[in-house]
């Protein structure tokens, strides 16, 4: 057992946990944030993607102890003051989900992708960057559309702010 302290969505959370606890277990079971999903449990599907110190990682493939002292953002941390994050809004607008199981990971991956391509994204790049996220419903078309739209919106917001 060890005590870990992780800042989740801006709020510090400390807990005594077994060293073998995965970050996704800490988020879901200790912090009670069940938006982060476990899909495959074999590190392939991306449903568990969260941001650790600003980078997208698979929370099922990291020990909570490895994230001790880190800043973690989950799907619950994206909306601000009741307003959806532009990526969340774009997924709703473009029907980028059907059953919704992969959506938290898709959206966290999309936010990370848009952060890494501030000059904008084309369809080919989006599809390549979605390598680590599996969706069994949509066939990806509307997910790609949503990410493209969100990327354009966020670029417009960044330019307007300058």
């Amino acid at each position, binding site marked *: 057992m060890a005590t870990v302290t992780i800042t989740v969505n801006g709020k510090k959370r400390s807990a005594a946990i077994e*060293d073998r606890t995965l970050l996704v277990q800490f988020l879901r079971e200790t912090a009670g944030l069940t938006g982060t999903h476990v899909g495959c449990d074999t590190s392939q599907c991306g449903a568990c*993607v969260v941001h650790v110190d600003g*980078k997208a990682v698979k929370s099922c493939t*990291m020990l909570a102890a*490895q994230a001790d002292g880190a800043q973690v953002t989950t799907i619950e941390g994206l909306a601000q003051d009741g307003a959806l994050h532009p990526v969340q809004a774009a997924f709703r607008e473009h029907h980028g989900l059907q059953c919704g199981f992969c959506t938290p990971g898709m959206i966290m*991956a999309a936010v990370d992708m848009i952060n890494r391509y501030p000059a904008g994204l084309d369809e080919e790049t989006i599809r390549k960057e979605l390598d680590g996220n599996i969706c069994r419903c949509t066939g990806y078309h509307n997910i790609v559309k949503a990410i493209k739209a969100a990327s354009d919106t966020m670029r417009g917001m960044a330019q307007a702010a300058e």
Partner: protein
Amino acid sequence: MYETTYHRPKTLAEAGSLLAKSDEAKLLAGGQTLIPTMKQRLAAPSDVIDLRHIEDLKGITETPSGGVRIGAAVTHAEVASSDIVKRQLPGVATLAGGIGDPHVRHMGTLGGSIANNDPAADYPAALLALGATVVTNKREIAADDFFTALFETALGEDEIVTAVVFPKAEKSAYAKYPNPASRYAMAGVFVAKLGDGSVRVAATGAGQGGVFRIGAMEQALGSNWSADAVAGVKVSDGDLLADIHGSAAYRANLLTVMAKRAVAAAG
């Protein structure tokens, strides 16, 4: 996952003594192979020693002779986006940017990849083709001597990879055919023309004994650096892997195709 005890050393010396203290300890770099393996209970280390917080294992620097030194705990994403690597060793930047997926690349490290020596991993091809040197906490090992067999390396029990030093290269490029499901290489070829003019070619994903050099392609490219020069070189399928994803003959053909693509990419 079985119970384990997590350690976070701040120095290489501390990591070394933790490793020496336990017979069943494992080094944890990015964890992108080790943690899935522990979850499947295929590995049950009593202790895991996290190497991500040791300053000595970080950083990418140009060496005085025009080569590049990459710390063992540098992630694939950092290598892929490094201006030094993109300028000096474009093949290594391409290779790192094609490992796994974006999330894996944010965690997975150079040191972890080579210490594991998965026969379908990408990095071993770059180290062997470039004639790189593996630096550990005890010694330096030439890439030619480092990769010994499937999942086997020359590393001793208490040895920790600290960095890889790549020599100056005039040209470098990597092309792989990823398994459509796992993204691991079914055949990957790294081609390099080194600063002294010598040509080296290494293949991953295809060999029964792991990464290996393709001498016939090195000779062909040595006298004529062009995709056409390797187009006619066939690799014998006798020592190649065969599994449900592809026969040895299929992989042999892929090696020639990947070599052509790599040479074309190198220019």
